[in-house]
């Protein structure tokens, strides 16, 4: 195979070292770190999405409530991540990752809330009027007309939130919350630093960001067939 380095890459402490991740024990460590990472990101983005949909629907008609909720979400976003993880890891049981999910959810709020509000704002008024004319009630109007039309903006927010959360989650490991950052911490603390472990974790992080970007683009296309029809 082209990618196989010559000699013993573990002994050479090479960056690219298949012998590192094909080892049974290491593979288990890497896969569990990866699944922890994905789970942290998925849970925090999902919770933040539900929260921001609810908040957006509640506040969108009032200028003051909008400014207030955006302001609070902005404030949460400015809290440095290490400090936030540190505070929650000391007040919550560090053996569970609830603290990490709370911090990541808080960071995602501003990214999602802003995009949900923008999406709802861009629904054309005459479409809403037409739906009302067809006898759509408030609930059906929101679920069948407004949210589907707001979808491109919402999915754009989800993509932004997912990519940034994948990065911030690596910091969670510094406070013992797990994920791919754990491999970075372990690799850096080895003597000498374990290059293959660091490099593998970083590549997985970036690959995860790219894959989630592509998957969410496909989801967006799948969820809005009318845009697909128009563009082809």
């Amino acid at each position, binding site marked *: 195979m082209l990618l196989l380095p010559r000699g013993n890459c573990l002994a050479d402490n090479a960056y690219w070292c298949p012998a590192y991740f094909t080892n049974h024990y290491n593979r288990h460590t890497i896969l569990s770190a990866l699944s922890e990472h994905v789970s942290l990101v998925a849970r925090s983005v999902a919770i933040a999405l539900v929260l921001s949909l609810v908040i957006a629907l509640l506040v969108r008609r009032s200028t003051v409530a909008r400014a207030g909720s955006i302001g609070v979400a902005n404030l949460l976003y*400015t809290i440095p991540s290490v400090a936030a993880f540190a505070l929650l890891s000391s007040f919550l049981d560090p053996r569970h990752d609830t603290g990490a999910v709370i911090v990541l959810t808080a960071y995602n709020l501003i990214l999602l809330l802003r995009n949900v509000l923008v999406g709802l704002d861009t629904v054309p008024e005459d479409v809403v009027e037409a739906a009302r004319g067809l006898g759509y009630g408030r609930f059906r109007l929101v679920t069948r007309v407004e949210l589907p039309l707001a979808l491109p903006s919402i999915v754009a927010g989800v993509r*932004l939130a997912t990519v940034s959360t994948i990065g911030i989650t690596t910091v969670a490991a510094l*406070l013992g919350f797990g994920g791919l950052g754990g491999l970075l911490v372990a690799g850096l603390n080895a003597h000498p630093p374990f290059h293959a472990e660091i490099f593998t974790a970083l590549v997985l992080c970036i690959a995860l960001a790219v894959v989630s970007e592509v998957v969410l683009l496909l989801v967006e296309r799948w969820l809005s067939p009318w845009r697909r029809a128009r563009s082809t």
Partner: protein
Amino acid sequence: MAEPLATGPVDMSTWQQLVHYLNDYYTWNGKNGLPAETLTQLWLTFLSVLLAAVVALPVGIALGHAKRGGGAVTVVADATRSVPTYGLLVLLAGITAIGVGNQAAVIALAVFALAPVLVNAYVGVATVDPDAVDAARGMGMSGGQILRRVELPLALPLLAAGIRTAGVQTCATATLAAFVGGGGLGNPINLGQAQASNGRGELIGGALAVIVVVIAVEIVLALLQAALTPGTRTRALFLRLRPRREAATA
């Protein structure tokens, strides 16, 4: 039921540990005290933003003046944003010849600070009112004169906004330097974390110090930005009720 066993020599509640930490002589004095670590954190922030500005300001301003390369600016900004900062720090400190310490931190933080400075410099210069540029050209100004006497003064508020965003984000992220063998306010957090249930005072104290320092930096830079931006009310800068220009935040 028996009480859970004490996990170490000190068995205090989280709150007691925090009070104890805040009253410790070595919290406020010496090279590992909070004042010294704060200075290190600010120095790291300053160096990183300076490095980012030296690279990004000329490039952003030149591209904005030529109104070219907007796509490239977006690509570079997105690429630097999608690299996890902590991952980059570990990469520089653990794999490259730079090694652990403040140097690796400054380089990684500068990469991180690049995006806001670059995007705001480009957008600031490129979106200067074309009528003003036309008028200047009609008066016989050369390209360089237009840049120096029309575009740069008009773009100054957005340039300042970019530096401010970069400064605040970098100061918050500089906390990570301590986790790759550097200095700064990450040290008390790191040490507190290492002491498990006995280090919660130090852990929380460090975290609170980071938050306070970042807020202070935000206030100072906001005032600087206000000084450079004629006609802004300071209140509007802090409340940010109106969304900033999309390029500055997204």
